[in-house]
């Protein structure tokens, strides 16, 4: 009944309904409904042809056909709906699928051990891949919270030192540049915003003081960053003395109270009024750390030195952010402002720009995070390396898990050969068998997916902690589910394709006769897969060890001073002036403190660099900039710097404020035979300072880099001091001392916030990036090894089972347990040895190039390879032995009796 006779069509000459639509209808609609629906559609069609003409009627016909493509019309016979017209309702292809799933479930349930290995291995692999996927997504979507993401950029400039032809770049611009951009280049930009750098401030109201990160920037920032204003508007920063708080800051300061129009003080000197509150910017944004915004003009008004620089082209200290005017592209704007200095600045500045080859360019927001390292002044790489690295690791882990699946499926093929034979004998096509095995792997993948979701939910808090992220599974995001679906399908094919094609190719006659002997090469792909697995595992083991070793090496590097018990407190309150000596006396009185001194930079950073120095025998070609730190009299003693020559600053010599101490690197750099007693002349050519001492390098910047050449000047009156350094007596514990120290601060300078930092902890932070990598690497390595071992375990147990009879015969003939153990383990050990042979040169090559990044680096010694190789072999033996010993111990009577 499926094919309908179509007699005496009245319009064999007139217009007909579109054929393809009819075909579609006939294909889709259940046969017992088709006749009536199609009849009605046709009838209507001819009516409409007369009413509105053939074109429109056809269109309506197609439209109506599409409306019939609903489950209702497709359903196989529904009870009570019409009467079955055909005795053979359209066989639904779901029936066969149902059978496949049933068989798959039975197989899983029958071989619980294999199923467990399969599902747990795959689940773990998927969990890792998805975690990495989430991480990569987070990295890539950095800064995308802002609607104008594509148009926001920071202004940078390149300059080339004509002496050494070295190009470098900076994001610090001159104050008048903002105004010049606004007057000459405003057609490119929607916003041109002057900004100070994000830094810590003490925000206080009444007697409440909190440290908050803030940004002083032109008011357009609220609009540029498209912040979600909970209170106030984008005009909230237009008032000079205004401040806009993030929601969490507002809650921290005012609790549930309405913050609007409340008065605050920044650093106890700038008065502001709260004019707005914005929803917190998520952490994966450059401005995510900012907790309040205040107007740039207020910062200028509050800092005399900035005000004096309003028209000064000699001082580059300020940031400029821009947002492009929509149709303008980044390239156009870049080309437009490239020669800004040469064209739009006073002659003196333009000359300097020509001499140093100044070039202005925009550093777009989409590069801020992933391309944050600069080479020759241009953005070149950065975090993007890790995105690639972890992406590869994730793929590898998934691949390993899939390899397990493939191995176990093909290994078990002999067990299922009979089933395949029977299926083929009763007419199963190769295609159908492929479908069967794919649906089987689909089932396993779905199960693993569910398990992996659970694993992720468990592991996510830990992972967030290690990776310093705020990741979560976006369950409500439909995009996430689409990706998951794609992921499942891809994994199904990765894991199931090989077994599906392999198994479906069996010849039924041979299989059913029982003569199937998988040839000598049948196990070959399996062996290759094991080798791949172990190669990856060993590379990861070696990598982990080397990363650990490198961190250890840098941590053990002598730092040149004693950071034990040292704390620093920023001197950021005007009321400290004149009170510092009192503070020291009071602190010493507590008996907890060994000393208090001042410095212009904290011990774990160098904030000041100065150029233009000259000395006797200086090569005019070499750079003349040095790291400068101003310190008070007892600073050297406080931190225990190690004098190599000369003497420390001392109050006994009245002229010490015209002297200086240099570090070892500086002494070498200066190239003076006896640096102590020599004079260094400043850039103005008149002032000079005499060297009185040389100290061992103090590691203050990167522990992987050589310390910069540094000068230490005496700052007897604490004019440049920015940090208060306190040493707690070694005999006293920090928890005991801190409350006492705080009490002294409260008494002497009540307005200041007591925000202390331990120097050793600050120093440890310099390792956080490497430590993060090492933690993640060891995590992945462990997982990879585990997954590989799971696979090996399954494979070994299978081989042992297959050779039960052989083992029985051998035992009867007198083989010892040791013999049999060797026999069964030999194969796997040789596979792992091959893997070692591949992995060792590979990892050596990769790690050597990784280590080259660091100036202070550990060696890759032979024992690393030996240890990881031996470890891999040991793990293999342990895994395999469990099975082989079990097989070797079986009573031969049992294994031989079965026939």
């Amino acid at each position, binding site marked *: 009944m499926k094919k309908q006779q179509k007699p005496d*069509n*009245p319009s064999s000459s007139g217009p007909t309904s579109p054929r393809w639509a009819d075909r579609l209808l006939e294909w889709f609609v259940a046969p017992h409904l088709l006749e*009536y629906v199609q009849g*009605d559609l046709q009838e209507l069609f001819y009516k409409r042809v007369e009413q509105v003409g053939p074109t429109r009627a056809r269109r309506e016909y197609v439209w109506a056909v599409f409306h019939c493509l609903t489950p209702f019309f497709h359903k196989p016979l529904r009870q009570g709906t019409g009467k079955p017209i055909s005795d053979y309702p359209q066989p639904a292809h779901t029936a066969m699928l149902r059978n496949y799933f049933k068989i798959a479930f039975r197989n899983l349930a029958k071989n619980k051990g294999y199923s467990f290995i399969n599902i747990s291995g795959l689940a773990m692999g998927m969990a890792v891949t998805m975690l990495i996927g989430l991480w990569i997504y987070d990295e890539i979507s950095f800064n995308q919270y802002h609607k104008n993401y594509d148009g926001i950029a920071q202004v940078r400039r390149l300059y080339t030192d004509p002496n050494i032809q070295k190009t470098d770049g900076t994001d610090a611009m001159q104050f008048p540049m903002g105004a010049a951009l606004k007057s000459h280049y405003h057609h490119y930009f929607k916003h041109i915003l002057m900004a100070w750098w994000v830094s810590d401030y003490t925000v206080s109201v009444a007697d409440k003081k909190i440290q908050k990160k803030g940004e002083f920037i032109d008011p357009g920032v609220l609009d540029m960053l498209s912040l979600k204003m909970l209170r106030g508007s984008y005009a909230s920063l237009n008032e000079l003395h205004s401040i806009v708080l993030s929601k969490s800051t507002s809650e921290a300061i005012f609790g549930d109270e309405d913050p609007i129009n409340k008065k605050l003080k920044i650093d106890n000197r700038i008065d502001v009024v709260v004019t707005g509150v914005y929803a917190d910017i998520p952490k994966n944004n450059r401005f995510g750390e900012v907790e309040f915004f205040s107007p740039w003009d207020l910062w200028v008004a509050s800092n005399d030195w900035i005000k004096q620089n309003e028209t000064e082209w000699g001082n580059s200290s300020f940031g400029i952010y821009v947002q492009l005017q929509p149709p303008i592209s980044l390239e156009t704007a870049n080309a437009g402002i490239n020669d800004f200095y040469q064209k739009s600045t006073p002659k003196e500045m333009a000359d300097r720009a020509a001499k140093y080859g100044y070039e202005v360019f925009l550093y777009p927001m989409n590069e801020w995070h992933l391309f944050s390292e600069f080479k020759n002044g241009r953005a070149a790489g950065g975090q993007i390396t890790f995105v690639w690295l972890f992406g590869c690791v994730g793929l590898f882990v998934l691949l390993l898990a899939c390899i397990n699946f493939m191995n176990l499926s093909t290994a078990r093929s002999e067990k299922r050969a009979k089933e395949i034979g029977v299926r083929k004998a009763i007419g199963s096509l190769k295609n159908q068998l492929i479908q069967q095995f794919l649906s089987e792997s689909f089932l396993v993948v779905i199960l693993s997916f569910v398990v992996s979701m659970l694993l992720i939910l468990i592991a996510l808090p830990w992972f967030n902690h290690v990776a310093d992220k705020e990741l979560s599974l976006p369950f409500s995001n439909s995009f996430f589910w689409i990706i998951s679906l794609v992921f499942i399908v891809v994994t199904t094919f990765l894991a199931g394709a090989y077994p599906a094609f392999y198994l479906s190719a069996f010849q039924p006659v041979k299989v059913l006769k029982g003569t199937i002997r998988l040839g000598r090469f049948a196990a070959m792909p399996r062996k290759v897969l094991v080798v791949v697995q172990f190669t990856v595992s060993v590379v990861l083991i070696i990598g982990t060890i080397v990363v650990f070793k490198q961190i250890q090496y840098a941590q053990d590097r002598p730092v040149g001073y004693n950071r034990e018990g040292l704390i620093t407190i920023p001197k950021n309150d005007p009321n400290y002036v004149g009170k510092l000596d009192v503070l020291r006396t009071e602190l010493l009185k507590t008996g907890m403190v060994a000393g208090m001194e001042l410095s212009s930079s904290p011990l774990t950073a160098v904030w000041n660099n100065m150029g233009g120095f000259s000395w006797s025998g200086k090569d005019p070609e070499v750079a003349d900039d040095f790291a400068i730190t101003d310190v008070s009299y007892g600073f050297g003693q406080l931190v225990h710097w190690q004098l190599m020559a000369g003497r420390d600053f001392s109050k006994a010599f009245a002229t010490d404020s015209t002297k200086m101490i240099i570090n070892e690197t500086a002494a070498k750099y200066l190239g003076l035979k006896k640096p102590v007693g020599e004079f260094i002349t400043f850039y103005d050519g008149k002032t000079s300072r005499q060297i009185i001492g040389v100290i061992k390098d103090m590691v203050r910047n990167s522990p992987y880099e050589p310390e910069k050449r540094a000068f230490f000047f005496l700052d007897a009156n604490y004019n440049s001091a920015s940090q208060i350094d306190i040493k707690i007596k070694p005999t006293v514990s920090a928890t005991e001392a801190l409350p006492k120290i705080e009490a002294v601060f409260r008494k002497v300078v009540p307005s200041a916030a007591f925000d202390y930092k331990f120097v050793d902890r600050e120093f440890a932070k310099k390792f956080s990036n490497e430590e993060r990598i090492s933690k993640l690497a060891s995590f992945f390595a462990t997982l990879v090894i585990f997954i590989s071992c799971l696979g090996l375990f399954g494979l070994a147990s299978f081989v042992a089972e297959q050779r039960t009879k052989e083992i029985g015969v051998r035992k009867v003939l007198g083989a010892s347990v040791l013999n049999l153990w060797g026999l069964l383990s030999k194969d796997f050990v040789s596979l792992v040895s091959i893997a070692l042979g591949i992995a060792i040169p590979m990892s050596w090559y990769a790690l050597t190039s990784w280590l080259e990044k660091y100036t202070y680096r550990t060696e890759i010694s032979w024992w690393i390879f030996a240890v990881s190789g031996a470890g891999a072999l040991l793990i293999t033996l342990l895994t395999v032995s469990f099975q082989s010993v079990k097989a070797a111990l079986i009573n031969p009577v049992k294994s031989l009796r079965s026939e």
Partner: protein
Amino acid sequence: MKKTILGELEELVLLVVAASSDDVYGVPVMEQLQALTGRSFTVSAVHTTLYRLEEKGFLSSSVGGATAERGGRRKRLFALTAAGGRVLLEIQQMRQQLWQSIPVGKLELLGL
């Protein structure tokens, strides 16, 4: 009884079938609906509703004559069953009750 609750379209279709003197099939039902409501319906919607009503036992169907403009295809003709009549009466009764419980003059107050 839950089963007797009818959707708007179901009720309309049932009424159209009840109102016609002969047994009807999809196209006339659809045209009637269009003429009455001014809304357009697709063949698929009408068919779905008809079959659903049959499933619920409010309509019965038989196979009817083929015509040339249907390409020789037969029609499925629908007729109201006793159960269908009953459910229409029930609905009418319920509506009437509700109408009667509208306070006197309320609609006039709204200017209707």
